[in-house]
């Protein structure tokens, strides 16, 4: 390690040598040939100036990368990251899908259920009273928990609640770091992935990799890994192995929470019986009959047609609709899309009920605006969805870098295609020729 004084002395010596060397060259050539050889003197000076400047630059850069400087920047980074995590998780919760039902003033917090898995270490016993408390479940699972549930059951919302809890209780010691697993690109190690994510545009856009790496190495965070099911099937085993190795090296107080859809989790368990070294898996269950009745009764106060789902619950169509609406997401979307309950009862299959809820929500959102023609808006949204699914490519034949986050920067390559470079070169040549000839 080069000391501070040595760093100061090196360019000073270089500058002195440049000047002294020039004088010596002047005198030496004068004494040898009778007259000073100016080209030699000039060349010495020029080389000396360049070497001195290069040394200064190298030193400046190495100083920026010194451990002390990086440590200081990591401490500056932490509050910035905290703000970002807050804004993306519980800070934005009110804008999320759960918002419409807030007006109903009914408790529809999803219940939790244990997923029995022989691999898992025995968790702390959990009382029935707190079976809907995600925080208690997290603590009882020794801060290493897998959160599973059906699509729309509220996994992400539950994860945001945990982030809020962790931020409030141990904010000084650790940051709850929210990571979307859709960005996983089969990196060699999980640590590399985390550094990549913190630096990426879909992550936290930290520009200095050394700082990001130091932060990840510090262990001053709890990990909330959202969307294991968004990792392509072929990469899941690699992810599971990478996460296991990483989690084993973490201190016990560092929390790790992974969210995943039930079906994908079961598939992963069947394919790879070992992996995901988390203490326990918790499943988010659908709304109970009482919870759903309570919500429907509130809705019936606003639109009496909802009463049909309460009074005709013996009908098969009603049961189909109730089953779909027991999912918090679909219940919210049905309310937000101002769906007419009669339409729900007309559907012959459960999938049609789901499609109806989603379509009515999208239709209502798209038609209640004047900026874009609804048909155009739907087509644009559809293209973005297909681009994210990998079914469409950009005009430069590029595929998305993330299956859930759409970034316009992904449409273009980081460097211009060769033909553009050639055009630029040709223009430059033309301009320089014009200027100099």
């Amino acid at each position, binding site marked *: 390690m080069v000391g501070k004084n040595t760093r100061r002395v090196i360019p000073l010596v270089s500058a002195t040598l440049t000047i002294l060397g020039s004088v010596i060259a002047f005198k030496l050539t004068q004494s040898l040939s009778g007259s000073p050889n*100016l*080209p030699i003197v*000039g060349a010495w*000076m*020029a080389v000396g*100036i*360049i070497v001195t*400047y*290069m040394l200064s630059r190298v030193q400046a850069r190495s100083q920026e990368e010194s451990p002390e400087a990086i440590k200081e920047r990591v401490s500056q980074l932490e509050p*910035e990251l905290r703000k*970002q995590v807050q804004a993306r998780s519980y800070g934005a919760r009110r*804008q*999320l899908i759960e918002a419409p039902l807030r007006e109903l003033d009914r408790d529809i917090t999803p219940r939790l259920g244990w997923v029995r898995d022989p691999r898992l270490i025995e968790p702390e016993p959990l009382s029935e009273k707190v079976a809907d408390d995600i925080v208690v479940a997290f603590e009882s699972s020794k801060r290493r928990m897998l959160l599973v549930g059906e*699509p*729309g059951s509220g996994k992400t919302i539950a994860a945001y609640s945990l982030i809020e809890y962790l931020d409030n209780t141990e904010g000084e010691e650790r940051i709850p770091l929210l990571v*979307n697993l859709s960005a996983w690109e089969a990196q060699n190690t999980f640590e590399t992935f985390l550094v990549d994510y913190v630096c990426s*545009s879909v*992550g*936290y*856009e*930290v*520009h200095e990799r050394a700082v990001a790496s130091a932060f990840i190495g510090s262990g001053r965070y709890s990990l909330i890994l959202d969307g294991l099911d968004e990792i392509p099937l072929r990469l899941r085993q690699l992810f599971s192995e990478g996460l296991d190795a990483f989690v084993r090296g973490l201190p016990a107080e560092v929390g790790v929470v992974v969210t995943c859809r039930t079906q994908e989790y079961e598939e992963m368990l069947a394919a790879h019986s070992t992996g995901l070294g988390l203490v326990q898996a918790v499943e988010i269950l659908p709304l109970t009959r009482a919870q759903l009745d309570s919500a429907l009764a509130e809705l019936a106060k606003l639109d009496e047609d909802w009463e049909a789902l309460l009074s005709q619950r013996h009908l098969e169509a009603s049961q189909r609709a109730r089953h779909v609406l027991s999912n918090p997401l679909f219940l919210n979307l049905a309310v937000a899309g101002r769906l007419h309950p009669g339409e729900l009862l007309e559907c012959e299959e459960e999938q049609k009920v789901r499609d109806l809820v*989603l*379509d009515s929500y*999208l239709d209502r*959102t798209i038609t209640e605006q004047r900026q*874009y023609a609804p048909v155009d808006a*739907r087509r*644009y*949204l*559809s*293209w*973005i*969805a*297909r681009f*994210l*699914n990998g079914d469409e490519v950009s*005009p*430069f034949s590029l595929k998305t870098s993330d299956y859930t*986050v*759409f*970034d*316009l920067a992904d*449409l*273009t*390559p*980081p460097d*211009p295609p060769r033909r*553009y470079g050639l055009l*630029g*070169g040709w*223009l*430059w*040549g033309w*301009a*320089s*020729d014009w*200027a*100099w*000839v």
Partner: protein
Amino acid sequence: MGLGIGLGLGLGAGLPFGRGFAQGAGLGSALVSGLVFALATGLLFALVYGLVFGLVWGPFKRSAVSSRLTFVWPSTRRQLVDFLRRAVRGLGLGLLVVGLIFGSIMGLAFGLLTYAYVNVEGERPIPWFEVQGEALSLGQPIQGLGLGLLVGLIFGLILGLVFGLFFGLASGLLESRSVLITSRTPKETYSRSRIAALTWLASGLGGGLVVELGSGKDWRMGAGLGLGLGLGVLFALRNGGWFVLLQKVAHRRLARAGNLPPRPYDFLEWGIDMQIFRRVGGGVRFRHNLIQQQLAKLHQPQPREVEVLSETRGPKLALAGVFLALIVLDIAQGLWGETPYSKFGSRLAVGIGMALHDLFRLALIMPVVSGMDYLFVMRRQGVSFREAVFSWPMVAVAGVVTLLLLFTGLILPALGG
């Protein structure tokens, strides 16, 4: 980059210099000398540019997306002080580093070249170097070397001063952000890249203008401006320009295909406002994956392209008919009209020549007319350039132009035109 610029400039400047050096000799000697000079000068320039740009502008070589340059207009006293501080630092850096390094190396290069030139030039005087009112000649190589060094150093320092002024201005207005996270909306990323690129372009043009106005009569007209424009474009492209340009191309193609609106940034903001998307880092994601899958499932093949193709099919055929009619009528005129030739082959050649000439004129007029039409009228209506070219109004224009071409070809000779 330095090597590229150096070789470009070397070929530009070295070839004529080498040609001048070998004046009077055979073509082969001139060419060889020219190439040798071009290569030598090019490598020298490459070294200088590589060092200067690599070292001085190295910190600004960032991709557009991760660019940390922010345009700051000094509106408060504090910002003004900061601006002046950065501007003076930039000026100093430009003057000392660029001027001194460039001046030293250019001085050395000019000196050595003049030394060599004076040594081999023979008895002929060198018109552009004079000592005490007399042109240099054989036997005065040291004076030539001294003058070359002096001229090179002065040239380098002037260049350094000009670069320093604009580098200072640019570094004064473009602040490097100290924050570690630069989370921004896609629109911000784009507009910042555009501002950075335009600032570099304007700085280059401004610098070129100063060189142009400040240079003597020896400079070729527009050379300074050309140099400034070239450098401006180069730095603009490297500092966000490519990103902006490629994004423009991508947006235009997607809008033309009907996949995204012409202003996609506004659309994403709209989507966030409508709570269809939520912001994640520099991008957006659907509020829920089920919504994404539902939209992807409902996708129908884009009919617009097919519509465009079928809409332009008629005008395309009609335009082909107009072109064909012009060819046939010109050839007919050549064969049976008034020509000074009597042989069939000669008359056919005249007809084909006339047809080619008219086709060329028509092909030139059409893009100009349709381009103007597109720029002033159709673009606002969201019509693509292809649709503007292959449209019925353009068929009418082409028909009228064809008639005029044929008409003037027939009438003017008759009127003695």
